[in-house]
């Protein structure tokens, strides 16, 4: 297209439509003919999916206190057999794997989970935890529903209460690390916060809404989240995998792979173009159009 036409289109957009945000329908996400594919089964309660630099997905079976890895050939191998009811995982720069151990009341990090999974360093002790997300600086946010708060473990392992008066469950960061999102299983919105230098939070707002409640349920059961490279947010919930655009507007629901509790989601695969979900006793995957490269990977 000639540059002048492109320019005039852009100017028209600026003049007429800059405030009218881009729509992100499910047809831009799903691939016709691609459905959910079973990846792993026979677990009690799966949670905590996280992808490493190669797109290999790790997940946990909480009651069985195990961390697994889905290998490139589809085999599922055990990473840690004594993970103290780990309920959340998050990778960060350098391939470090952060984990929150609900049973051990700890936040820990595996510096090299692939080659040396026995090496574990404790970052915080005597804490109640549910889910976590690591930031670029080497700090980690974890949800503490028991005490109605979100806590930040800074890179020096000092703890800071950064949000209170909420019943937090899942937690994630935008891929630019500038916005933190926290779910509550009860409310029809997700909280967004601005991340301040040093990890403190400000600008709390119910940015993502309206979180849908399916018939027969009283609550959203909003839990884990993932973000894609276009800024969409994917929310595991009772209604299914709910998708929101980057202005917080509900864009649609991807149906659950089975009629069971959908707890969490992550992008994985070599191209990070596959959604992996933990759904009660099973883990499923589904190829989609968007990609969700981990923010900590070099561009």
């Amino acid at each position, binding site marked *: 297209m000639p540059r002048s036409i492109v320019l005039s289109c852009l100017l028209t957009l600026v003049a007429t439509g800059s405030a009218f945000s881009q729509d992100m*329908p499910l047809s831009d996400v799903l691939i016709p003919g691609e459905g959910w594919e079973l990846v792993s089964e026979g677990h009690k309660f799966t949670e905590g999916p996280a992808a490493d630099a190669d797109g290999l997905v790790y997940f946990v079976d909480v009651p069985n206190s195990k961390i697994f890895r889905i290998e490139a050939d589809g085999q599922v191998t055990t990473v840690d057999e004594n993970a103290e009811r780990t309920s959340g995982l998050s990778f960060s720069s350098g391939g470090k794997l952060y984990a929150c151990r609900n049973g051990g009341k700890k936040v820990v990090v595996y510096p090299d989970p692939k080659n040396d999974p026995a090496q574990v360093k404790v970052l915080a002790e005597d804490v109640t935890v549910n889910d976590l997300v690591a930031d670029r600086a080497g700090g980690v946010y974890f949800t503490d529903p028991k005490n109605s708060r979100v806590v930040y473990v800074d890179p020096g392992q000092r703890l800071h209460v950064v949000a209170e008066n909420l019943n937090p469950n899942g937690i994630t960061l935008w891929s*630019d690390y500038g916005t933190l999102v926290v779910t509550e299983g009860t409310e029809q919105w997700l909280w967004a916060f601005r991340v301040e230098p040093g990890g403190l939070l400000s600008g709390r707002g119910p940015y993502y809404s*309206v979180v849908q409640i399916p018939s027969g349920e009283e609550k959203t059961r909003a839990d884990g989240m993932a973000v894609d490279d276009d800024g969409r947010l994917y929310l595991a919930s009772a209604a299914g995998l709910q998708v929101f655009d980057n202005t917080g507007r509900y864009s649609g629901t991807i149906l659950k792979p089975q009629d069971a509790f959908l707890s969490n989601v992550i992008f994985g695969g070599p191209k990070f173009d596959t959604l992996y979900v933990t759904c009660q006793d099973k883990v499923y995957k589904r190829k989609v159009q968007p990609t969700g490269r981990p923010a900590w990977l070099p561009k």
Partner: protein
Amino acid sequence: MKISRALWAQLLVLPVLVSLAHAADDYQLGPDSQPKEGVPKGELTKHEWKTSEVYPGTVRDYWVYVPAQYDGEKPACVMVFQDGWSYCNPKGQVQATNVFDNLIASGEMPVTIGIFINPGVIPPAKSGQNPRKNRSLEYDTLSDDYARFLIDEILPEVGKSYKLTDDPNCRAICGASSGGICAWTVAWERPDAFRKVSSHIGSYTNIRGGHVYPAIIRKTENKPIRVHLQDGENDLDNLHGNWPLSNQQMAAALKFKDYDYKFVFGDGAHNRKHAGAIFPDEMRWLWRGWKNEGKSEKAAE
């Protein structure tokens, strides 16, 4: 019958001429939207609001238009605009301040202070990070949050510099798209504060649940709201809903409940061109009877 070459030519050219004359969405601003000689110009000033408590962490620009006829003694009427710059931009599709100048001078509108507010943004803490755009949350949410933001934050702030009316009949609110449904929501939630609504290409669709308004209007005791709706047959049809149909549903509900409403349905798309073209007549309709409004209310008391 033998058709002459000249007639053939006419037959061929005629549809082209007709289509040129009635091309969809070819709305133009009329003389009442342009500066007129001899009509005093109001003053437009730019301001910033960075201390919102309803929307913590947001920053936004807003502009205040003060008509030349404002004397500082009598409280002025108020009209609030969502996406403010799009309405007060002197090169924009509506050019509301020219319309205000002209209609206030002709007495067809009261002396009205215009408050043109942009949506909030939570700027990133570090460069390279994305801002959080708060527009949809502020405009599309079905709650009294945006009304409280206006009533508790913006009106008192502007009121420090100008005498503003507290008569809800003299307070109007206007917006386009999500800003349009926002205008309706503000009046619906707080008719004690705002009773005049101007909605352009309003998003009465399921962005954050706003598609339910026609149903709610039909089953709720009427509120004292006067509302002008504009939409066009080429407006959006997308994942959130169908704008032409949802505006027709709004109009049908307002008609069913015998509201003081007017619906102008054209052939425009999702922009403010049609809104700009009709804005002077819309303001005449919305503010009609303004000279008696305060009186009749007092007489009723």
